[in-house]
């Protein structure tokens, strides 16, 4: 779980912070011309790509989990917690 959280933080830093910093900082520098709408649309498309990839993976995992670990699945077996009476 810690790894997942770390990965989420890295993704946020990779995609959001640099763009925001660039958009905010570049406007203050003389001679720099920046179309903020273009930058923000770029950020949007990158976020959408990430969102759809993660969405597809998570949704697919959820569907697979439901099918694979339902108790009526022939491969289903008691969990180790059931056997140890720890649950």
């Amino acid at each position, binding site marked *: 779980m810690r790894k997942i*959280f770390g990965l989420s933080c890295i993704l946020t830093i990779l995609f959001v912070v640099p763009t*925001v910093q660039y958009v905010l900082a570049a406007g203050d520098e003389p001679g720099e011309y920046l179309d903020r709408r273009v930058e923000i649309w770029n950020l949007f498309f990158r976020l959408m790509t990430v969102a759809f990839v993660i969405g597809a993976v998570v*949704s697919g995992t*959820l569907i697979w*989990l439901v099918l694979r*670990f339902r108790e009526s699945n022939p491969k289903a077996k008691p969990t180790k917690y059931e056997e140890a009476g720890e649950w």
Partner: protein
Amino acid sequence: MVLEIQKPRPIWQIMFSTHHTDVGLLYLITSLAALFMGGALALAIRLELFLPGSQIIADSMTFNRMFTVHGTTLIFLFILPFASAIGNYLIPIMVRYKDMAYPKLNAIAFWMIPPGFALVWLGFADFTWNAYAPYSVISAPGPAADMWIFGLKILGVSSILGAINFIVTILKCKHPDLPLSKIPLLAWAYLTSSLIMIVAMPTFAAALLMLLTDRLGVSGFFNPARGGDPIAYQHLFWFTFHPEVYVLVIPAIGFMYEIIPRFSRKPIFSHGSGVAAFILLSIVSFASWAHHMYATGMSFTEKTVFMVGTLAAVPASAMHVFNFLATMWGGRIRFATPMMWSVGGIALFFSAGAGGVVNTAMPLDFITHDSYWVVGHFHLFVMGTIAFGSFGFLYYIFPYVTGRMYNEKWGNVHFITSFIGAVMVFFTQHVLGLYGMPRRIFDYPPFPEWVAMNQFASIGAMLLGIGAAIFLVNMIYSAAKGKEANMDDPWGIGGKYYYPYQQKNPHH
């Protein structure tokens, strides 16, 4: 637990009791009444929008009144009281205390709801559940608007009293042998959502007073004609009600944390990450309120700050989803009705969250602002996640409340009709928004795409209505004549129950 049906008591004994399960039962019945009343208004709205032109509602003013009361009822009178009901039943048992910290205050908090309920319904205001200025100040007809303001004031105080009670019960009344780190995640959900409530709600309480004095002509806080600023009202409103979204959703996630390990026959994957995610969500809930207001002329920097603040909720929400998936992984899952609702709720929570990420990106927000996309997005949260989690938990707690089992087959039918219905209505509304249909309209031009999508959404709403009817019959019939539940293991899945009914706290 209260085995009311098996051992009935005179109704006045329950009504005037301060015992936590009795107050919980009162909350539960009130919230379900609100669910059906607010749901009936939703069905009327969808029937009206089935075709362009006036269908069953006479005029736009009546339409406005209906969706105002629909939203107010389902948020303040169904979701919040339902969460209070479950909290009243379980929190004292989970922290091993004899009752809520302040039983009389608990009963008072509940008894503030009926007058608030009556004021909202008898007034039938027309200014949407946002009550945005300047319309609410200058033009909204009284006494309906004033009754709504007083009603919300009472409901807000009730929520604050309830939140104080939950916080004190969890922090100060828990058993000395029970460290905070070991209390169940549902109790953590109530602790964090109650803290959010305490911080957020007073702002709206102040805004309501300012609105009322503006309407009375005493002040001009939000009245442009008197130098006031209507946008200030929006800031005050959303400072309360964006965090309030988390007040609503966090208990629903807590419900899933009870159900998913139980029916997966495994302990929760990571208790610590669940706690961390609740705390993170409660903090970032205050970093995103102005994303509702991009179109009000905020500066680019402000909008960027609130966009990033909104996105900060994604990792915390993802931690919950991954925790659920990791718990199910390697389990032996019984897809009884509560589990079906929880898994469906996770799927729709994820979809609603994805829509939220899109919506918070400024460029798309300008396209979707005030369109049906927004309606689809927040309904996917409140219906697809919060109500799904609540329905699941209601089925889960049903044997403990009544001593009987609900009908499993009809519970499944309720879930399937509701899941299909929710997807049909709320996904379609997203697309309708992208096709340009504005929200809060009584009539629309007969564009073929709009008509077709509205009809599709209305059929989905009818499915939701059929599911709700099945649910009502199932609850009433099963409570009266259902099979007697095996109270040690109602679903026959084994394991040790966390709150067996034998732990019933004595009445006082």
